[in-house]
């Protein structure tokens, strides 16, 4: 009764002030914070928020850079996309590229991470070597791979000739070029996956594996029933982030398949290349923006899937 009376008497105002006080919103501090953040926020607004929002807006316009009229056309760009052969090929190629690159690099990196899990000088040396491709810039390495894949004098075809395989037109045959890109993609990203797996494996309490050993579990059983379930959150994280990164593939496509002899860009059409071509070579910027929105939606979709799966992963709280 008494408590009710008190809250009835001064409930509202005291709640408000208590709320303000609990947040500790001091106007001087607030002023300082916004003053300090001003340059960062201005930059953030100009190079992230505005272009992201504008790309959505542009996608509803027939926006040609050099045309005087830029009419609003609703969802027409999106409808056109669905029947645009180049776009559909690009979607398919990018999907295959991403899944293949991520799949192979994960399957290869996981055992390597387990081998390197024990701490030691040698492990550090291996980690360093496997990480080298991750750190090297894309353009020079893509040129180096182009030279490796060279039809006439490439070291890869030479290696194949030693085991009696006829030279492979790595970069000129579209079907094969996609896989040439996958091989390079795996080479580039494997060290990154390896490091993340290594962190995950080292975070597994040694007592879990010891307990499994004492119970007579074989190495495979320990991997299957202890390591793998404990690794699930990081595995999901790696799968999703690598897929997102692979979806943005552009530089190596530009460098490796746009040779002077190969048909420019047609060899292996990827999503970002299609955006680049429509936007900056044909100046169809509204149309290219619709493609860009599609790319963003795909990436957001993968991210949401990851959030969902990680939340449901039982190993996380263990």
């Amino acid at each position, binding site marked *: 009764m008494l408590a009710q009376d008190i809250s009835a008497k001064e409930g509202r105002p005291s709640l408000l002030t208590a709320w303000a006080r609990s947040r500790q919103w001091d106007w001087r501090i607030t002023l300082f914070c916004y003053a*300090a953040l001003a340059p960062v926020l201005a930059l953030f607004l100009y190079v992230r928020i505005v272009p992201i929002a504008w790309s959505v807006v542009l996608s509803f316009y027939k926006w040609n850079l050099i045309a005087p009229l830029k009419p609003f056309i609703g969802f027409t760009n999106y409808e056109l996309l669905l029947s645009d052969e180049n776009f559909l090929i690009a979607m398919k190629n990018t999907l295959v590229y991403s899944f293949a690159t991520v799949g192979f690099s994960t399957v290869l990196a996981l055992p390597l991470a387990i081998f390197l899990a024990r701490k030691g000088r040698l492990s550090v040396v291996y980690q360093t070597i496997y990480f080298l491709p991750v750190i090297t810039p894309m353009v020079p390495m893509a040129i180096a791979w182009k030279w490796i894949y060279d039809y006439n004098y490439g070291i890869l075809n030479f290696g194949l000739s030693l085991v009696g395989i006829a030279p492979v037109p790595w970069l000129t045959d579209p079907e094969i070029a996609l896989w040439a890109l996958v091989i390079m993609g795996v080479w580039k990203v494997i060290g990154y996956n390896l490091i993340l797996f290594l962190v995950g494996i080292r975070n597994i309490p040694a007592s879990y594996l010891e307990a499994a050993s004492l119970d007579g579990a074989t190495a495979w059983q320990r991997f299957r029933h202890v390591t793998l379930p404990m690794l699930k959150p990081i595995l999901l994280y790696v799968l999703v982030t690598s897929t997102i990164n692979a979806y943005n593939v*552009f530089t190596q496509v530009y460098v490796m398949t746009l040779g002077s002899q190969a048909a420019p860009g047609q060899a292996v059409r990827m999503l970002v290349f299609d955006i680049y071509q429509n936007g*900056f070579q044909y100046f169809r910027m509204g149309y*290219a923006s619709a493609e860009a929105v599609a790319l963003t939606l795909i990436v957001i979709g993968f991210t949401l899937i990851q959030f969902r799966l990680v939340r449901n992963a039982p190993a996380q709280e263990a």
Partner: protein
Amino acid sequence: MGANPRRTIWARLWVALVHCILMAGALLMVLPMLWMLATSFKPAVEIAVWPPQWLPQAPTWDNYVGIFKTAPFGRFFLNSVGTSVVATIAVALTSLVAGAVFAKYSFPGRRLLFQLIIATAIVPFESYLIPLYLQLNSIGWINTYQGLVLPYLFMAFGIFLMRQHVQSAIPTEYLEAARVDGASEWWILRRVIAPLSGNAMAAVGIFAFIQAWGAFIWPLLVANDQKLFNMELGLTAFQFRFSSDYGKLMAGSVVSVLPMLIIFLLLRRRIIENMALTGLKG
């Protein structure tokens, strides 16, 4: 101790196999770089030969001299250095300020702003190139240095990393002690937080450097004039012009890769740890 000998033999064989696999993998990782290096020292007559030779028979610096003579690679290199250094300093500073404010202060909009910054980091840069290009076009920054470097001055993950650092490594009591002594918030930022954040700023700066050094698609759009080309763009242009001159192309590639390798080998541990922490890629 006293384990049955058959098992130890198998165990040893297993260890040997693992080492073989690791070594073979490591070899595959470095082979493209070694091949690049070897090719860059070969005279033209040794490049298009069958079967390919691993090592140059008559090693020469001609390719390296050649790239600086036939194309302005010196300029490309300086452009890369310049833009990367500017990006590094800007990202380190903006990340420090924003990270510290988000970590240690309470103000209206804090949660929302921080979440917005992190959420937009997911959106791929490639997907808003067109509007960004139009924006810079409208203020006349296309084909300028400031236009080249602008998108690389801000890094959401840098802010994230710095916030983590300030939250975990700088006790709030330090700030309060300074406040009791009458210090202003600006003073605290400069004299308390900044000096304790050197390492984290360096980590963030390295990422900004790596990112700006490898920049390709943005410079491809913005730099029309060869004077503004960075190494990556210079190499690509060079590739179209001398498509089969792999000696020179590999020399240029070595020049572009080398700074990254040096930075990586010097700061290996921090780079690997932070990449693992943030999931950020170079």
